[in-house]
């Protein structure tokens, strides 16, 4: 038996910190499904399992449901889907859409009843509400077993040991063994994770989401190809990277002038900038020379080279050892003003601060003043 295990497509999800490219990113998530179908075909998978959260919410546009169903209809193999906690089986859910019936090869599993699959039985654990403390796999323990069948479970929940305040749909670490399953396909967590049993065989795993959802998300953008020779045999798991987007986070503290030059080199080295999202967060000290380099980096990020680019320089302070911040200003009132702004830009400044003279604002004010003088003297 060979099948493809995927989950957490989160179609129609929200992107709060990527400016105007949310729509584009949502489209990318759907486009990745075509890649995923091709991979399934390429690996000659007999069927496909989607372990919940196919959609971000039951209130997503219905056209998205239709699009996903259309793509799955082209898979040429059975596709078994369970509702997850984001798209639970409730009245008005995405699962009531006629597209699923029309697709023919797609089966939405809405009750805890074993379903025959090529070469075995599938034990589905559909989700019927957003929040619950119940283990969705419990029912499988008492389900009838036939010796020799390959028993596959499909569930959506949190495997014990994951750090979470409230355990939503908890699944025990040995759920597959307890339920006598050859493999338990899990969804809910976006990172690829496997859980070896006492014999070392991996019988339960999270495939993770097929496309990363945010900056800093670990081991996401994968699917699993699972192969099982027969009932009781150890499954063979093959992770395949499907994510097309690159989420680049650069956090840097500037200490020397060359730091910012390195930063520029780093962002220029991104291979497919058109599919990359770049988030730069800077802290530390900025020299007058560094200020010019920073302007250049801003220009690159704003040029449209990247799918998305953002730079946060609010925590940068004019470098106190760089006298140019003040010395380059014309003597007299302007230089005096610059000198005082530099003092205020220092978070350790012990003097009296007027309203609205936070270190961040003062640093920015000095940079603005410096820019005016530079412009005038150019």
């Amino acid at each position, binding site marked *: 038996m060979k099948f493809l295990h995927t989950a957490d497509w989160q179609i129609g999800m929200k992107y709060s*910190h990527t400016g105007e490219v949310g729509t584009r990113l949502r489209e990318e998530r759907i486009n990745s499904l075509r890649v995923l179908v091709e991979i399934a075909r390429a690996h000659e998978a007999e069927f496909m399992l989607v372990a919940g959260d196919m959609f971000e919410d039951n209130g997503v546009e219905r056209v998205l449901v239709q699009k996903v169903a259309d793509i799955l209809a082209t898979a040429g193999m059975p596709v078994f889907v369970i509702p997850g906690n984001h798209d639970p089986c409730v009245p008005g859910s995405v699962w009531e859409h006629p597209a699923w019936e029309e697709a023919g090869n797609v089966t939405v599993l809405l009750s805890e009843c074993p379903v025959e699959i090529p070469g075995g039985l599938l034990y589905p654990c559909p989700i019927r509400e957003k929040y619950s403390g119940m283990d969705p796999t419990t029912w499988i323990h008492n389900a009838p077993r036939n010796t020799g069948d390959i028993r596959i479970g499909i569930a959506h929940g949190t495997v014990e040991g994951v750090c979470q305040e409230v355990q939503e749909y908890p699944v025990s670490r040995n759920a597959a063994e307890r339920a006598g399953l050859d493999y338990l396909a899990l969804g809910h967590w976006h990172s690829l994770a496997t859980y070896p049993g006492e014999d070392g065989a991996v019988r339960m795993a999270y495939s993770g989401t097929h496309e990363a959802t945010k900056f800093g998300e670990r081991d996401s953008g994968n699917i699993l190809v699972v192969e099982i020779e027969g009932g009781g045999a150890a499954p063979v798991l093959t992770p395949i990277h499907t994510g097309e987007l690159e989420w680049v986070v650069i956090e840097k503290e500037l200490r020397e002038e060359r730091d910012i030059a390195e930063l520029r080199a780093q962002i220029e080295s991104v291979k497919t900038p058109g599919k990359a999202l770049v988030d730069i967060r800077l802290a530390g000290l900025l020299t007058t020379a560094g200020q010019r380099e920073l302007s250049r980096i801003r220009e690159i990020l704003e040029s449209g080279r990247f799918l998305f680019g953002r730079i946060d320089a609010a925590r940068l302070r004019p470098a106190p050892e760089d006298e140019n911040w003040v010395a380059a200003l014309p003597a007299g009132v302007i230089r005096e003003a610059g000198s005082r702004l530099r003092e205020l830009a220092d978070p350790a400044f012990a003097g009296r601060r007027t309203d609205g003279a936070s270190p961040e604002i003062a640093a920015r004010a000095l940079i603005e003043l410096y820019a005016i*003088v530079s412009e005038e003297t150019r």
Partner: protein
Amino acid sequence: MILRALRVAGWRCFASSVEVGPFAEGLNVLYAPNATGKSTLFEALLRGLLDGHRVSGREMEAIRPWGRSLSPEVSVEFAHGGSEYRITKRFLEAAFSKLERKENGRFVPLAEGTKADEKVRCMLTRESPGSGLARPKHWGLAQVLWAPQGDLALGKLSGDVLTDIRASLGTQISGSGMGLVEKKVEEIYGQFFTVGGKLKSGAGAPALVRLKDDLQRARHRRTEAILQQQAFDETARRIEELRAYRTQAKNDEEVIKKLLREVRSSARRYQELSAEKNQRKERLERVEAQYNGLKSQLDMIKLARQDCKECEVLLRRHEEDVVWQRHEVDSRIKEEARTKAALEDTRKERKAVDSARELAEQARRYLESVKSLTSLDKQIGQIEKARRALAETKKERAGLLAPDAETLRAVREALRRCDAAQVRIDAALITLEVTPESGGSLTVVEGERTGNVELNSGSPTRVKGSPEVVVELVGVARIRAWGPTGSIEQYRNERTLAEQELDKLTMPFGVADIEKLEEIEGQARRLDRKVNEAQTRLEALLSGESGESIEMERSRARMTLAKTLHVHPDWEKTPPDDEILQMAAQRVRSSFIDKVEEAERRWEIAQSALSEIAQQEAATGAKREEATKQLKQLTDKLAKLSADGKSDEEREKELGEAERKRGEAKVRFEETERKLLEFGDDPAVAIEKLEKKLEAAGEAAIKALEDEQRERGKMQQLSSLGTYSVLVRAEEEIAKLEAQAEGEQLRVDAVRLMRDMVVRCRREAVSAVIDPVKERATRILRRIAGGKLGYLALDESFVPVAVIPGISGKEVSLESISGGEKEQVYLATRLALAEVLAEKERQLVVLDDVLTATDTGRLARVMIILEEAAQRLQVLVLTCHPERYRGLERANFINLEGIAGGKEGR
């Protein structure tokens, strides 16, 4: 710069060449009357130093002397930077400019033409007037140092003069490029903020404002999207609830149906028991009535027998009471008769009481008559005396003939007319007064009195007459005097008429003197007053009565007295004491009243006792009758109850049998009742309720189904909206706008801080420069005007804008102080600035006919200050009042009129 000498020619009133100088390095006073060219010299000095020699136009043409075709020419000798210079310029035709410098004691050419113009101008200012005439803004330091005619006020200083002043004060406000950067800062600030410091709005508003507006709209959209999403979730939950409710309603229906079957079976058994219970109840009621009838008969026979016995006892007691009460009535009739007789006897003592009261009353009347008679005798005596006094006064008044007040007024009026006529006569007469140097005589030919009149040496003699006076001085002259002709005869007639009326009025009194007449009139008035007083006294004594009535009253009193003495002759010698007699009569009366009241009280008691016992006797009789009647009724009743002919034992036996039957019937009834109670309520009621419940459950299931279908329709509609996707787009937009707004807010805050910091630094720098000037000017002002005006406030251009009196500490606008004080404020400021500017090099201060509003006292103090200033400055005062400056002992006075007319002043 120091001015040495000035020469003009062909310049307004100076057609010929005039040279003024040399000027002293200290104080110079150039004086001359108005219109002799002082201000023309000031103008020539300015043009010579600051204007290009090629300037032309109407203003330059106006400089030519009237009616002459002369080219204005000026030559200024001055010292600057340690060198001596002379600039000579001719304007209009054959214009030229030549700058010379003194080298080895003589002037040697240094520059010509425009270069000469420019070189001199640069010594005074960096502001070039271009090709036109120099305006005050091009004057450089002269803006401060030179005050044009009558215009001491200091306008807004411009150009490099401020820089020069600041440089002289040793403070560098800012370096080169200051203006550009500050302007740029202001420009950027202006892109974001209004002049008032508020964030701009409208078309020119910064991006932040637009972002905030967009954000607000996006938030509104998000709220709507959230509401829709909530409606979506809520509808899903509602459908689930309705589905559960419908299932529950169906289950309920089944349970109710089963229960209903069971209850209907019970209801049948309940009805059977109920019928049995009714039968047993009827039987019980029957036997119970029988028992109760027998028991009642027995009880009533026993009660009737008892009542008969009690009634017989009561009748006997009443008959005994009747006998005793008859005896008591007789006894009390006798007692009542006895007390009544005693009362009658007591009442007979009343005569003694009346006698005692009469005696006391006679004594009182006797004493009152005696007292009244004495009083009347005294009153009649006083009346007689008053009558006599009145008669005497009236007699005296009748003997005096006196004018009344009306006559006196007429006399005074006649006298006034006499006097007025005399005054007019005197006024109408012509008077001729002769004062001879030596004695002699004159003859009055025409006059009031004609004839000769003696003349005494040195003594004036007057001759009066009308319409003319003619006198002859023998051997000297005949003198005739006449004057305005008036009607003197008319006045004389008026006087005669007045005198005649006066005689007529005063004749009856034998005297014409008004004072004597007034004295007589006063005497008559005093007598009249005395008559009135005597009359008033008499009337007071009579008190509104006549003398006869008083006499009659006295006669009545005497008669009363005589009658009483006839009855009690001893009272004449020993008058009675009416109080003692009154008390004795009161004692007799009180004793009598007490006795009568006691007798009445005893009689009333006897009457009351009699009445009481009579009533008791009547009541006892009535009770006896009632008891007799009741006994008869009871006897009849007992006979009726015992009419069955049975004995008491037989009746008791029947009652026992009835009681046993009643017990049996009761047991059977209670058994049936207990069985019914085991059912609780009537099952029929439960059936009715269950049928209603069943109906309600059916209806609930139908309604739940309808509601579910309706909610599904709603859900269909919400699903088609894609509520979550709408919310996602709204939240993403908000996140984007918030990030942009945050960035813009930082920039806006930074620009505000940058600009505020620059403004603050500039203000502090300017303040550092202005304060020394302010202090100097304030010191000078205080020396001139005293401390009343307090401190001077200067703006950033060193222009005085207000004073701050120490008493209030608040700024007072210069518009609110007097003209003289305003003048002194400007002088103080100019001198303070001049002192600042003169620290490197002595400077020329020109005051052209200023201080016109300053009073003499303050001007004297100004003189002292000018003399002090002249130690560091060259001061040139142009004035048409040289006397006001005579106190300046060390000043160089130059008489311009003398120079122009060929004379030299002091």
